[in-house]
Structures are given as structure tokens and as C-alpha cells.
């Protein structure tokens, strides 16, 4: 066995981090430092409170200069967190940054192991492995790729809108892709927003028209991303634009055609009004829809179903905007970065049959109530129930499909506040008795607690208890004709039956129905609940593990409007950081071929999913296109004669790591003072 970097003997600097008490609380850091000091080629071994701090990094750079170190090992947290930090420190010291190896003794040791003896032994094993490995490291040049300046934003809810506008205002070209015929998302359906009670439409619609009119934004509604190729800085995105059967260029949104439709009345559930009203086959989702373009639903339009409609809509349109022959258009764009703001879906209340949704008319979801109290909603803002009555008592049930291991474990974060808001609005509209049934009131936001306070003073009932059932089974004449809510009032310790006219189910937030497909499309991960996974919950909340793909809004987890907007801004600025730097350094972990070692056996050709390996017929050898290689190393593991290697993960490096891990510990860790 020969060493791959034979010029100078290794002089290794070893550093172990306390991370406050995070590591040193379990691992005997001093013992690890002493142990490392005695390992072959270790010249300097130190422990320090916070290696990632400036003095910690500076120490490394200084030691490299003073002790002529040529290899550095840092034992601290996960490389996914600070590898880059320490590589930079190594570079500052004048070494190639890849003469560095990181040992994860926090996430992999101190945080998961309890026994100090075992944790310390494990930390020593890992340290030894890294010391063995780093000796084989090579100097590498990171690959730089340019970043295309255009950005794709997926999802036209408030998060997508805000992200798109932020980027467009900064002078970047943005393509905003929205699945529905209009942008606006859930927020457009809301009546008022908590805690300020601004009208949602009043604050949202100006932003929607800005999107439409912004010279830097290309808005593609009724469209979906169908393919994603490439890598950070250089994505090729395929977008399928569904036909609206109306020319977006020609339609001015006068809606004469809708008037003219042979259906005199709406007949089909109106998606925008949560099914509480009916629309025609030709419709515009809501008056401020953006773009203000009519759409024809081929599922319900007579012309599409039978081909025998007299097409009165066509006659009515004097701009000839209606085109029944419109076809789907497939567009391909090239962007450098992507922001996903695909939002959420509400919990399906039908999954909890004991709450009677779908069975009792007067049980509503919160989203339905938003429409019901809205002036532009199905009842013009009058609170008229499905059975035509006006409610005198209303029960709002919190945590429907949230905080429940039988459905969703997480807290949906917004329901407490929107339930308070709805309680206020319902009281305002009907002067009914309003009961809130809650487990805990979570009002942790600016001015949220004050809003709760206000509601208490409005004489809204707050009953702490999770509702067991909503039933029409009556036990007293006073309950006749009502829905009875059965709950334990846990403050008093007694079970109560509360008859109400209307039940509002505060449904929780769930991952968007196609979150898994979108995740695969963009090669990112989901967390346990199915929301998109951020790179780091605190330090990189809008980044993903795929460079150049950012997430914003409720697709990352339940979020209210202020948080979604804040995150959208953060995602936009993260994209800008990339764009403005012009290029990005890629991890140089690509595969390469040593041509004279290659026999041309072709075993590698089918292995590469990116078609980065081809067979050079003339030379009868393989050939790797490093630009296409993404660095998985599968070909390296496959090559039967060892002709393909992988930077950063060379065979020798991994063998030495294995050997280092398993080399028996000396019975007694050698002495020797650590610096």
C-alpha cells in the first residue's frame, strides 16, 4: 500500500470541541485530546470550548503556520453544519482546504449516547479514524459553476407572491408558476386576518396585481412544473401550461361570456367558496382573480362533453378570446435558483366522523366559515346556515386533526388565532353565544396575546377541553333541534353537554397533497410529517439539502401569514445571495478516470444515472464528463478493476477510515500532555 500524497510526511493538527456542555457534558474531551496527541503523526492536539468561534478558527490557522501542520482534524459537530467553516479556517492558515477531516462527536456521540465511558471511547475511535484518513487526503480544487440569474417560484400564495416581488424588485427575472387559474392561494379565501383584523383581500390583491404587472415577472397560472433537470445555478425546468380555452392575451375579464353561458345558474361546486356556492363551467374564480382571465372547465362544459353546445359564450365575446381548440403548452425555462412555496392543504374533517362533518349540515370547517362571513362570499357576508337558519350559539372546536397521534401529531400553529378571529367575526355578525373548545391557547406572536385578551372581554366562552363528539342525540328537551357538543370542562372537572346551532371545526394544516411528488421532482427531503425539510431548523430554515432550491411558507410547516411572508423574504434573499455571487463552489467530490488503468470493460456505463460516463470507441476506454457528474461514487464502487476514483471519497481514504476505526485501542490511552 502506498500513500497517495507522498511528498511530505503528515503533520496533523487535532482539535476537539467542547461545544459548551453539548459535547463535554458526555465526552471526556481532555482525554480525547490526550489520546489524539499520541496517535501517529499528530503534532498538535488541543481542546477548546467552541472550535467554530473566531478564536477557535484562528487557533487552527495559527497552528498551521507555527507547527508547519499539513493536515487538520476537528472533532466537533456534524460536518453538515460546520465542515465549510473549518475548511475556510484551514485555507486561512495557508493549506488546501481539503486537507481537513471532520469528526462528528456531537450529533453522533454526545447527543445520542449516555454513558460517558462509552461516549468517550466512541469519540476516540472516530478521532483515530479521521487521523488515519486525513493522511491520505489530497489537495483539491473546488469546481465553480456560474449561477443563472433567473429564478423560478413555484406556488402563487402569499409566500410565492412575496418572494417573486422581492426578487423582481431587486431586478431579477422571475417565473411564477401557479397550479390554479389564479394566484392568491389560501389567503385570498380568508375574510379578515388576525390580530389586526385587516381585510385579507385589501392587503393581498394589490400585491397580486403588482405580480401581474411587474415587468420582471412572468406569471404562468394554471400551470405545473413537470420536469427538473440540472443542478444549482443551472436548472432546466419544464412547465406544462394547461389550456384555459380562453386566450390570456385577448381576455379583458369583462365576464360577458359567463353571463351568456347556457347555464343560467351556477351548477358546480365553487372551489373558491369551498363548495358553499355553485359556479358555471365558464367562470372566473373570484372578482379580483389574477390574471383576470376567464377559464373554461372541460369537465363540466357541455361543448366538451357533447360537442353540441350552441356556444353562446363564443358569440358574446367581441374580442374572440374563446378558443375551444386550445392545447396544453409545454415551456422550458432555464433558471439558476428555485423557490418552492407550494403551501398546505387543510385537514379533511371527514376523517373524524365523531365531529359530524358531512353528516350534520351545520358543521363547518374553518375555511368554509371564512367564506361564509366574507362579504363577497356565497351569502354576501350574511351568516346563514345550510338549513337557512341564523345561529344563536356557535361552538368552535380547536385542534381538529392536530396534536393527535391518531391523525397529525403536530400543532398547526394558526388554528388558535384564527379561531379567535372567527369567534370575533361570528359574534360580530350574529351576536351569538360563541364557545371555544381548546386544549391550550397558543397566542405567541406579536399582539396575539392582546387579541386573546380582547376576545375574553367580548364574553366569548373558553372551555378548556378537547371535544369528544358532536351529536344530534339529545338528552333533554332543551337540546332538541341542536347539535350537542360533549366535552369535559377540564377547569371544573365535569363533563358538559353544550347544545349549539353551528359547529366550526378548526381544521389543522397538512402537507400539500402532492408534496411527495414535488419533493422528488426537486430532489429535496420531507420531514416526518411530510412538510419540506429545511437544511437546518435554526440556521438554514429556508435552505434545503439541494443547493439552489429554497422553501418558503407553509410547505415547510404550518405557518401564519406574517411568518410566511418573512420566510418568503428570507428565501428570496438567499436566492439573491447566490445570484449576486455569480457562481457557486461545488463540493469537488466528482468521479474521475485514470485512463491507463481502464480496460474498457463498460461495467460503469449503465451505472451512472446522469449519463456522465461514455465509452470512447476510438480509445476503447471509458470517459467521464465531470460537468455532468454529481459525485455519488457509485461508478467508483462498481469499477471492477479500480480505474475510476472519486475525489474526497477515494478508496484509500475510506479504507484508512475503516482501519482507523477498528484498530484496537491501546490498553491504556497514552499519556503526553495536550497543549
Amino acid at each position, binding site marked *: 500500500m502506498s500513500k497517495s500524497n507522498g511528498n511530505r510526511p503528515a503533520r496533523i493538527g487535532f482539535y476537539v470541541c467542547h461545544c459548551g456542555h453539548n459535547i463535554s457534558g458526555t465526552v471526556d474531551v481532555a482525554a480525547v485530546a490526550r489520546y489524539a496527541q499520541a496517535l*501517529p503523526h499528530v503534532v498538535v492536539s488541543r481542546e477548546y470550548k467552541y472550535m467554530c468561534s473566531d478564536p477557535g478558527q484562528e487557533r487552527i490557522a495559527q497552528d498551521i503556520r507555527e507547527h508547519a501542520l499539513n493536515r487538520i482534524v476537528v472533532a466537533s459537530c456534524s460536518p453538515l453544519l460546520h465542515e465549510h467553516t473549518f475548511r475556510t479556517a484551514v485555507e486561512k492558515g495557508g493549506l488546501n482546504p481539503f486537507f481537513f477531516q471532520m469528526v462528528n462527536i456531537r450529533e*453522533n456521540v454526545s447527543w445520542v449516547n449516555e454513558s*460517558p465511558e462509552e461516549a468517550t471511547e466512541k469519540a476516540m475511535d472516530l478521532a483515530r479514524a479521521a487521523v488515519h484518513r486525513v493522511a491520505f487526503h489530497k489537495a483539491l480544487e473546488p469546481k465553480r459553476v456560474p449561477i443563472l440569474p433567473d429564478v423560478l417560484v413555484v406556488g402563487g400564495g402569499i409566500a410565492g407572491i412575496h418572494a417573486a416581488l422581492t426578487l423582481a424588485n431587486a431586478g431579477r427575472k422571475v417565473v411564477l408558476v401557479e397550479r390554479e387559474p389564479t394566484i392568491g392561494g389560501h389567503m385570498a379565501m380568508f375574510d379578515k386576518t388576525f390580530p389586526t383584523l385587516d381585510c385579507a383581500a385589501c392587503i393581498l390583491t394589490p400585491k397580486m396585481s403588482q405580480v401581474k404587472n411587474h415587468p420582471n415577472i412572468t406569471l404562468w397560472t394554471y400551470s405545473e412544473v413537470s420536469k427538473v433537470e440540472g443542478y444549482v445555478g443551472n436548472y432546466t425546468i419544464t412547465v406544462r401550461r394547461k389550456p384555459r380555452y380562453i386566450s390570456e392575451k385577448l381576455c379583458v375579464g369583462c365576464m360577458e361570456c359567463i353571463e351568456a353561458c347556457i347555464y343560467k345558474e351556477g351548477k358546480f361546486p365553487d372551489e373558491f367558496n369551498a363548495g358553499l356556492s355553485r359556479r358555471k363551467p365558464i367562470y372566473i374564480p373570484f372578482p379580483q382573480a389574477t390574471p383576470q382571465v376567464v377559464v373554461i372547465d372541460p369537465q363540466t362544459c357541455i361543448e366538451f362533453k357533447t360537442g353540441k353546445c350552441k356556444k353562446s359564450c363564443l358569440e358574446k365575446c367581441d374580442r374572440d378570446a374563446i378558443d375551444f381548440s386550445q392545447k396544453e403548452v409545454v415551456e422550458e425555462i432555464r433558471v439558476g435558483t428555485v423557490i418552492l412555496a407550494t403551501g398546505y392543504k387543510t385537514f379533511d374533517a371527514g376523517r373524524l366522523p365523531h365531529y359530524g362533518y358531512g353528516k350534520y349540515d351545520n358543521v363547518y370547517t374553518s375555511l368554509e366559515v371564512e367564506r361564509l362571513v366574507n362579504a363577497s362570499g356565497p351569502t354576501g357576508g350574511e351568516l346563514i346556515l345550510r338549513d337557512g337558519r341564523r345561529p344563536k350559539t356557535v361552538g368552535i372546536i380547536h385542534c381538529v386533526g392536530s396534536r393527535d397521534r391518531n391523525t397529525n401529531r403536530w400543532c398547526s400553529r394558526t388554528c388558535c388565532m384564527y379561531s379567535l378571529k372567527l369567534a370575533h367575526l361570528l359574534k360580530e355578525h350574529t351576536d351569538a353565544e360563541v364557545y371555544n373548545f381548546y386544549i391550550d391557547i397558543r397566542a405567541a406572536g406579536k399582539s396575539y396575546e392582546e387579541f386573546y385578551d380582547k376576545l375574553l372581554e367580548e364574553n366569548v366562552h373558553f372551555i378548556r377541553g378537547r371535544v369528544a363528539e358532536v351529536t344530534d342525540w339529545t338528552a333533554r328537551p332543551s337540546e332538541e333541534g341542536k347539535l350537542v357538543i360533549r366535552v369535559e370542562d377540564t377547569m371544573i372537572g365535569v363533563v358538559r353537554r353544550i347544545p349549539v346551532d353551528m359547529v366550526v371545526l378548526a381544521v389543522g394544516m397538512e402537507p400539500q397533497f402532492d408534496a411527495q411528488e414535488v419533493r422528488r421532482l426537486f430532489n429535496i*427531503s420531507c420531514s416526518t410529517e411530510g412538510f419540506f*425539510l429545511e437544511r437546518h431548523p435554526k440556521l438554514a430554515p429556508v435552505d434545503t439539502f439541494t443547493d439552489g432550491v429554497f422553501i418558503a411558507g407553509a410547505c415547510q410547516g404550518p405557518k401564519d401569514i406574517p411568518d410566511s411572508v418573512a420566510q418568503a423574504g428570507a428565501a428570496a434573499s438567499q436566492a439573491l445571495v447566490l445570484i449576486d455571487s455569480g457562481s457557486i463552489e461545488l463540493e469537488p467530490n466528482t468521479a474521475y478516470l485514470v485512463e491507463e488503468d481502464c480496460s474498457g470493460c463498460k461495467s460503469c456505463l449503465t451505472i451512472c444515472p446522469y449519463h456522465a460516463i461514455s465509452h470512447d470507441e476510438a480509445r476503447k476506454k471509458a470517459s467521464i464528463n465531470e460537468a455532468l457528474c454529481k459525485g*455519488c461514487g*457509485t461508478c467508483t464502487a462498481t469499477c471492477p478493476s479500480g480505474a475510476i476514483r472519486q475525489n474526497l471519497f477515494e478508496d484509500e481514504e475510506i479504507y484508512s477510515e475503516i482501519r482507523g476505526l477498528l484498530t484496537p485501542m491501546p490498553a491504556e490511552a497514552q499519556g503526553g500532555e495536550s497543549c
Partner: protein
Amino acid sequence: MLNHGAGVSRPSREWQPRIVAFFCNWCTYTAADLAGVSRLKHASNIRIIRVMCSGRVDPQFVLEAFARGADGVLMGGCHPGDCHYMEGNYKALRRVRLLRRMLRDLGIEEDRFRLEWISASEGEKVRAVVNDMTARVRSLGPLKLPEKFRDWDREIGELEEKVGKMEEKEHVG
């Protein structure tokens, strides 16, 4: 701060299996980090080697680990369909299926070598798999191939000299 004195005393402790794990950067290594962040305590017997993809795990690495004294080898990759590199995990799966057969024929029990799909969000699964694997390997007892090689080689002369030479040969230098 803990103070264990100059050395960590170990011989008094019962035998602990040593399990080498090859975890892919994107799913399983991230899940192991998540297990850490979530403070999910588990058996300390696992030593993780990070690779970019489960497809990078050369069967030679597995044999090397056993030959160097591992009692078990665990591979972790993304779930089928979820590989960050599209299909590296399928390559891993195929090799593992064949390697398991070969290891079985070479007298290494199936429970000593395992491939698990663990996504980035499955910190809990990391704990479960590590605990389960540790328990299984523990019940199989030590594999101790290096000791076995030494025992086997005792029959040929000048063992000391021989071993010395081998170690010298492999020294990092």
C-alpha cells in the same frame, strides 16, 4: 467537565459489539444527525462512515470492516425512489443481496450485515435500527476476525515477526 484520568479503563467491561455503518450523506447521515438533535439515545456501538450515496459502498469496504474487527456492518440509504442520485440505492441493494449470500457461505451470519432505508426525517428509525442491530449482533457474539486470523496463523512459524511485518506494511507512514 468529566474527569476520567489519564486513560479510559475498559477491560473490566463486558464485550461490546463494534458496528461499522456506512451512511449516505443525504438521507441516513442526515437522519442520524436528526437523531442527535432530537437527543434520541441509542446504543453506542455504531461508528458511522459518511459516504455520498449508498451506491458508493464498495463490497470491499464491507469485507475490510469485517476483516479489521467489525462485528457488524450496517448500510443506510435513501428509500427506494428517493435516492438523491436517483438510483444509487438500487445498486446498493443489488450488491447487498449478493454479498449477503456470499457472506453467508463464508460463515458470516446474515444479521451481521444489514441494509436499511432511512430517510432524512427518520431519526427515530436510526435509533430503532441501531438498537435492534446491536442487540442482534450482541446475541451472535463477537466475530473477531483479526484475532481469528492470528489464531489461524499461530501454526506457522515466527508469528511475532510476521505480525510485526504486516503492521509495518500497513502503517500510514
